[in-house]
């Protein structure tokens, strides 16, 4: 390789100009060569399918005769009017699970960040380790935990909790399985680590002296939390809620394993339309609506919470 560097002695400058320019061009192309294979992969297998799906959603036809683009927008209307309960349920369940994750995850993240001392690493391992048992196996374990007549249901029954939840229609009779409570419990459980990890990351960055300073200025612990700790952990709260809400809203595993037909979410509908009914236009329309709804909600949420540097 010709060792042409910008600070080489300009003895015969005109002769050297050409190679200099060629290396400059080659250097400018380096990032594009690095990007090419990965970006191509994402364009072909992520972006193109989304466009393709948008076109599928306005096709009509059958599996035998093939599908044709007919701009049949009616599919969207039919899909929405038939499956809006599942849409609403998905948003409701996912939002409830997200709030529960925040309420349950915050104390644990706070504990690990500020109070754990030399137990910190062990606690982190305990948060991450359950991941290594396939989540489907762990979700099935909830079937055992919440089984009819089991200790959990028995305790909730004798404490009359089931009477209250039954009145609120989130459980039915002396059962927890196959009720909204079981599905939300499973969703909360499955996505809790996605809340805890970003919360922990943002809490851990907080300078402990800020707490001391707040205390020195006569702030009570609650005030310190409200005015110092919580605002500083906002990036973690935003990231955590997104990481929980987005996968929860499209999930169909918890509803399938822990719920009954009355708890089906939009993911269940898309899955059965695609894999069982083989109605591809409807499946495409539903997943397109889900995608649009999520992207709209996420955009508004990120704007409102003022952390656009997240992306």
């Amino acid at each position: 390789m010709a060792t042409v560097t910008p600070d080489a002695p300009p003895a015969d400058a005109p002769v050297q100009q050409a190679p200099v320019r060629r290396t400059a061009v080659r250097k400018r192309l380096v990032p594009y060569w690095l990007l090419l294979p990965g970006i191509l992969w994402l364009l072909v297998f992520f972006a193109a399918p989304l466009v393709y799906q948008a076109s599928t959603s306005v096709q009509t036809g059958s599996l035998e005769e093939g599908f044709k683009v007919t701009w049949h927008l009616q599919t969207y209307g039919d899909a929405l009017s038939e499956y809006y309960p599942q849409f609403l349920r998905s948003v409701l369940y996912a939002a409830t699970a997200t709030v529960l994750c925040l309420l349950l995850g915050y104390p644990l993240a706070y504990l690990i960040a500020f109070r754990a001392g030399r137990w910190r690493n062990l606690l982190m391992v305990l948060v991450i380790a359950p991941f290594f048992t396939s989540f489907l196996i762990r979700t099935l374990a909830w079937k055992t935990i919440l089984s009819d007549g089991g200790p959990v249901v028995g305790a909730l029954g004798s404490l009359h909790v089931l009477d209250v939840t039954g009145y609120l229609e989130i459980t039915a009779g002396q059962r927890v399985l196959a009720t909204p409570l079981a599905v939300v419990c499973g969703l909360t459980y499955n996505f809790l680590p996605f809340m805890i990890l970003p919360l922990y990351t943002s809490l851990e960055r907080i300078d402990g002296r800020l707490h001391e300073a707040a205390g020195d200025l006569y702030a009570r612990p609650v005030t310190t939390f409200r005015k110092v700790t919580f605002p500083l952990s906002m990036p973690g709260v935003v990231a955590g809620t997104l990481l929980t809400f987005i996968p929860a809203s499209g999930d169909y595993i918890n509803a399938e394993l822990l719920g009954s037909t009355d708890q089906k979410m939009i993911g269940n509908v898309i899955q059965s339309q695609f894999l069982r009914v083989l109605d591809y236009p409807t499946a495409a329309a539903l997943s397109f609506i889900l995608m649009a709804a999520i992207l709209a909600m996420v955009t508004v949420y990120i704007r409102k919470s003022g952390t656009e540097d997240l992306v």
Partner: protein
Amino acid sequence: MTALTRWIRRNLVVIAGLGTLAYLILPNVVVLVFSFNKPNGRFNYQWQRFSTDAWTDPCGVADLCGSLSLSLKIAVWATIGATVLGTMIAFALARYRFRARPAVNSLIFLPMAMPEVVMAASLATLFLNMGVDFGFWTILIAHIMFCLSFVVTAVKARVMSMDPRLEQAAQDLYASPAQTFVRVTLPIAAPGIAAGALLSFALSFDDFIITNFNAGSTVTFPMFVWGSAQRGTPVQINVIGTAMFAVAVLCVLVGQLAGARRKRS
């Protein structure tokens, strides 16, 4: 009494945090306990009596170990693919200014902000219309696709926080660009690359939704568990789940001990 209430109030966050931890760990305990169960019917949901049958014969169920090795194979290849492609993108984003940067950034971010079922259905639609046979390759392609973004994020963060003076110092000491990259840049970026690779492996190995749509009749381990929820859950899946948990915890502990020893010496 007031001392007790004061203690509780002071340690409220500890109590609540440990409660959450118990909620997180409880299913794993159940999986462990029920790996020693001997159920009466086809389903392993109710405790009957103690038995080590499943542990002595973990592959005793048809297709279970086949699906497990398929999942491992896919996870290894998906990790290699996603780590190589993702690291290249991360270096391009962290080191170079170019016009398409914002577009590339959003293309990396979008797969992470998309419900899995949407990606799964759209990719399967594409394969279906191109007449591709579903199986090993379609699963692998899908897994590399959704792991890529996570590798990019992990590696980019590490490369961005690298002190550029280290590389300048290497060049001042007459290291060629290639030497600088291999001796300086790569070792510093290694923890980010390792984190991305580990995440890819875990995501790919445990993926269900995208695989469900793109596997055809090929059965990975999560697909096997899903099917068994309908047909009858063999005790062996609890054995595999517990063993994976134990191996992972062991790896972490060995890593921690090695790290502690290196720090001491």
